[in-house]
């Protein structure tokens, strides 16, 4: 396969899957900008490995695995290459509007609590409940056993449940 052909394939893949990758990266990092950086890094690594990856399924898996492992390694190294100058950075520009059912408020609280989980626990939840992957697939992506995935899932859900029970709608701890 010639380089031009490889480039065309890579470009087509990014065009088709870029938005989905960016959404997953955002959920993993909890931050739009960090999500972009994560996708960029994963795509750069994927491009370098492109000649070795043949099938579309393999490409998708490679990129996702790279995103997850890169994200966890960033966290391990406490990577803070680009620190926002404002605590609001990364937040959406408009606060959520009035929600008469309260459902949005609950999801907003859930989102805030997700940010307090460990990177690996968060990754497990995103892959299980957003990507809808099975335990074996998550284990393969994270490079751990299915038992570890079960354990991470269970602990993360228990932590979320406990946190949600002890905070009110404003995200403040109930006394």
């Amino acid at each position: 396969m010639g380089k031009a052909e490889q480039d065309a394939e890579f470009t087509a893949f990014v065009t088709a899957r870029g938005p989905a990758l960016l959404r997953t990266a955002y959920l993993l990092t909890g931050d739009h900008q960090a999500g972009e950086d994560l996708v960029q890094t994963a795509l750069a690594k994927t491009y370098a490995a492109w000649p070795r990856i043949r099938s579309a399924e393999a490409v998708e898996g490679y990129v996702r695995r790279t995103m997850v492992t890169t994200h966890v390694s960033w966290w391990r190294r406490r990577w803070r290459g680009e620190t926002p100058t404002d605590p609001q950075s990364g937040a959406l520009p408009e606060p959520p509007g009035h929600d008469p059912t309260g459902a949005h408020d609950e999801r907003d609280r859930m989102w805030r609590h997700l940010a307090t989980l460990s990177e690996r626990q968060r990754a497990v939840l995103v892959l299980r409940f957003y990507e809808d992957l099975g335990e074996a697939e998550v284990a393969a992506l994270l490079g751990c056993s299915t038992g570890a995935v079960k354990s991470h899932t269970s602990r993360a859900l228990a932590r979320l449940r406990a946190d949600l029970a002890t905070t009110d709608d404003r995200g403040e701890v109930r006394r």
Partner: protein
Amino acid sequence: MSRDLRDELAETLRERATSVPDVPTLAGASLARGRALRRRRRIATTLAPAFVAVVLVTAATALTGAYERAEGPSGGPTATSELPAPRPPYAVGEGRGTDARTLIVVGDRSVPLPEGTSVGLLHRAGTGVVVEVIGSDTQGVAFVDGEGRLRMLPDLGLPVAVAPDGRTVAALSDAGEDGPRMVLARLPDGKPLATLPGDRAPLAFVTGEETGQDTGPGPVVLFAAGDRLGTWDVTEQTAREVPRVRRGEDDILSAARDGRRVAIVGEREFRVVDLQGRTLWTRPDRYGRNWSFSWTPDGTGIVLSVGGRIVVVSAATGRTLVESPKQPFDLFALMWLDDRHFLGQESDLVTDEVRERRFACDVVTGTCETYGARFAILAEP
């Protein structure tokens, strides 16, 4: 939580994921290149300050070369030829060889600015363009007509606003012994038509209807003076204050082309007010102070440049419409050439060096062009 926690979690993740804008064609390849370039630049600043000093000396060439190397055969796929080429009605260029003066390009003609000067902003005026000319210790206003003739307008300083019909300009002047004053001058020769004493900075031409006041049939100029906004009715020779609007000493102002709304960047917020003094919206200044911004020509959007990102917000609501990935440079002096393209001067995020190299973005197709290469910005969410 009444529903099953797993269902709620899945719903939360899906809802959050929908807030992420899609990436248009070719974005990924460009993102990867941009990331690699930024990382190389970080390493360079950490490990080799001497090398950076060399880069400082030859920054424009060096960065261009670095970027082009990143674009090269080993840097990743390039498919920029598939993107439509921006065709602005006028532009800024650089001379070559021994004459490296800044050029104003109008159609097929290139007009050199006076030696040692550069461009602040460009303003369309009929078939020509009004140029804010900035030198090392001087600043002034020039007019380049549709035939490519450049004239420096005597005694006019900055800022300058251009009337919608392109026949007159309002500018701040402090030439002579009369003290600072706002001057209404005609094009193309800059002959003064009226003056208003005082240190007032013109922002835009407006109509009496927009100010909610009775005004004469002649031009009305919106201006900033101290912490207030005001209007100058040239026919009646009166100045009136826009009620209730106050600005901080360091706040940055920009008026929509029709003058009906003014965007104000303050210490902690970004807001838009109208000429009746109403605040139309505010949003937290999530980017800090180091940014520049400009209204789109049709008044529907405001484009910001901050921290290497290009952001377009809705002028009606303040909501973010488009946001680019980070680039290795920041833009300022943003100016719109038409409804699709804008230019900006660039400032290196690592070295803080400012270069005159120009930059064009097309927010409709979601592409930006610089260094002869293009990258994508994120599409509307």
